[in-house]
């Protein structure tokens, strides 16, 4: 069923009893041309673009839990393309452009809100770094604006401009960036993929990868053996565990990242604001809750829960930036398991096994990349060739000396 104003009226007249499920509850067939492991945003987007853009219809997505139960439902919903390095920026801008057309593409309201992302700077050195980043963005055709302190005070009056240690001197603004409704992205891609004939198989965990003569022939799952022509891994958070089944050596550590949401407030924060004294980011959801987070906890974990010390640190950063936050009550917090790569950038590439493809290492920036990740991964799987904007995001870049290290932190995942 195509969604439209007409479909809403029509279904309202029949008491809203005739809405159809958005995707089928598929049972696995014995063989697929392409099997995708991981029913999160990236896996579903990959399936969608494979079927729609690249004509690969015999595709299944395997998800061990329910659809969207992983990081696609556990993030702070920010979408932006304000990166500096030439290995990253074209990719994230490609993603931003796909975001801008996504609702029409999917016939689904993903509630994209281009409210602008502003990254604050607190010192002359940081200002110079942000000017450089803004220039790098312009070089790739992406608009960036440097907002000076006086102008910023009019835009966002409630910040702590005169903090002794981290005075706010201005910010770098990307107006096209913003937020999107994370669950709707997963559901929209699932519905779109399903309509193009993709089987989405929930509660089906991969337990082993079967190989013969050096190539993958299928996977053992909790629903039995499923054969495949090509196997694609998009299991961020558990990449090392799935990769281990195929003896892959991966530059990945799993870390835990927390996020928080407050009680609902009247509209007060109009942008996504990123604090430059630490790494705190905040926006206001359409329900009114303030959604915020900061750095990863700093230790490897698969637990999907974080530590109170980090929670306290996040609150302190928030209150340093916006003193008024101290009066707001936090409703709930959650944590997700991040694939932290050794340079803070993702991997979309082939593997040493010919028909096994890998999509991983999203660190804590995977949500904004969902459309481009899916598109580029589908391109790679269908054509066995890297998409031009993802050409730097290779698995062997560390061995070749081509790390894409945006933070300049070196191979120390808890610092990215």
């Amino acid at each position, binding site marked *: 069923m195509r969604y439209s104003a007409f479909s809403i009226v029509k279904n309202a007249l029949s008491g809203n009893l005739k809405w159809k499920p958005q995707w089928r509850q598929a049972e696995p067939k014995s063989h697929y041309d392409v099997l995708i492991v991981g029913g999160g945003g990236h896996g579903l987007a990959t399936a969608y673009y494979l079927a729609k853009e690249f004509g690969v219809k015999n595709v299944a997505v395997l998800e061990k839990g329910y659809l969207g139960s992983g990081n696609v439902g556990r993030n702070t919903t920010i979408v932006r393309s304000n990166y500096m390095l030439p290995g990253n920026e074209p990719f994230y801008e490609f993603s931003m452009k796909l975001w801008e057309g996504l609702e029409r593409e999917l016939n689904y309201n993903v509630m994209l809100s281009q409210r602008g992302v502003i990254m604050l700077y607190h010192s002359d050195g940081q200002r110079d770094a942000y000017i450089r980043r803004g220039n790098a963005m312009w070089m790739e055709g992406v608009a960036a604006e440097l907002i000076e302190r006086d102008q910023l005070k009019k835009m966002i009056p409630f910040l702590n401009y005169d903090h002794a240690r981290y005075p706010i001197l201005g910010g770098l603004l990307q107006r096209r960036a913003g937020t999107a409704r994370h669950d709707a992205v997963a559901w929209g891609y699932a519905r779109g993929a399903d309509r193009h004939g993709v089987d989405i198989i929930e509660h089906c965990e991969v337990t082993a990868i079967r190989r013969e003569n050096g190539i993958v022939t299928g996977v053992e799952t909790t629903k039995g053996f499923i054969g495949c022509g090509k196997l694609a891994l998009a299991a961020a958070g558990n990449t090392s*565990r799935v990769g281990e089944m195929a003896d892959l050596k991966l530059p990945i550590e799993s870390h835990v990242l927390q996020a928080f949401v407050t009680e609902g407030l009247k509209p007060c924060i109009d942008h996504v604001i990123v604090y430059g004294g630490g790494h705190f980011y905040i926006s206001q959801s359409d329900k009114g809750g303030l959604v915020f987070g900061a750095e990863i906890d*700093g230790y490897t974990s698969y637990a999907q829960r974080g530590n109170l010390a980090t929670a306290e640190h996040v609150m302190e950063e928030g209150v340093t930036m916006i003193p008024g936050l101290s009066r707001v009550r936090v409703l709930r917090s959650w944590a997700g398991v991040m694939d932290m790569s050794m340079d803070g950038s993702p991997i979309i590439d082939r593997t040493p096994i010919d028909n096994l493809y890998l999509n991983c290492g999203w660190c804590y920036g995977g949500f904004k990349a969902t459309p481009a990740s899916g598109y580029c991964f589908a391109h790679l799987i269908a054509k066995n060739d890297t998409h031009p904007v993802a050409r730097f995001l290779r698995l062997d870049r560390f*061995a070749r000396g081509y790390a894409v290290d945006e933070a300049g932190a070196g191979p120390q995942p808890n610092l990215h």
Partner: protein
Amino acid sequence: MASLITCPHCGVRPKEEFAIRGDASLLRPAPTASDEAWHDYVYVRANPRGRTLEHWQHVGGCRRFLVVERDTFTHEVHSVTDGAAFARENGR
């Protein structure tokens, strides 16, 4: 994670006094080892879901490097050893 860590030098201390460096199961290759050996040491991680060895530094106390055996799923801490003692015990 456990809120209290038993430092072999300082006794029971709050976890916040410690900084976590990362994987302690890796063995530093010889300077003349192959590029591949060095690549694996610097970039490749086993990333286990379960027991793991980590280097922690007691920055708010004795400042010694320690080896902590910890579970990455339950966050349980099994043992804390002095880094130098651990290296000797394991013939490093």
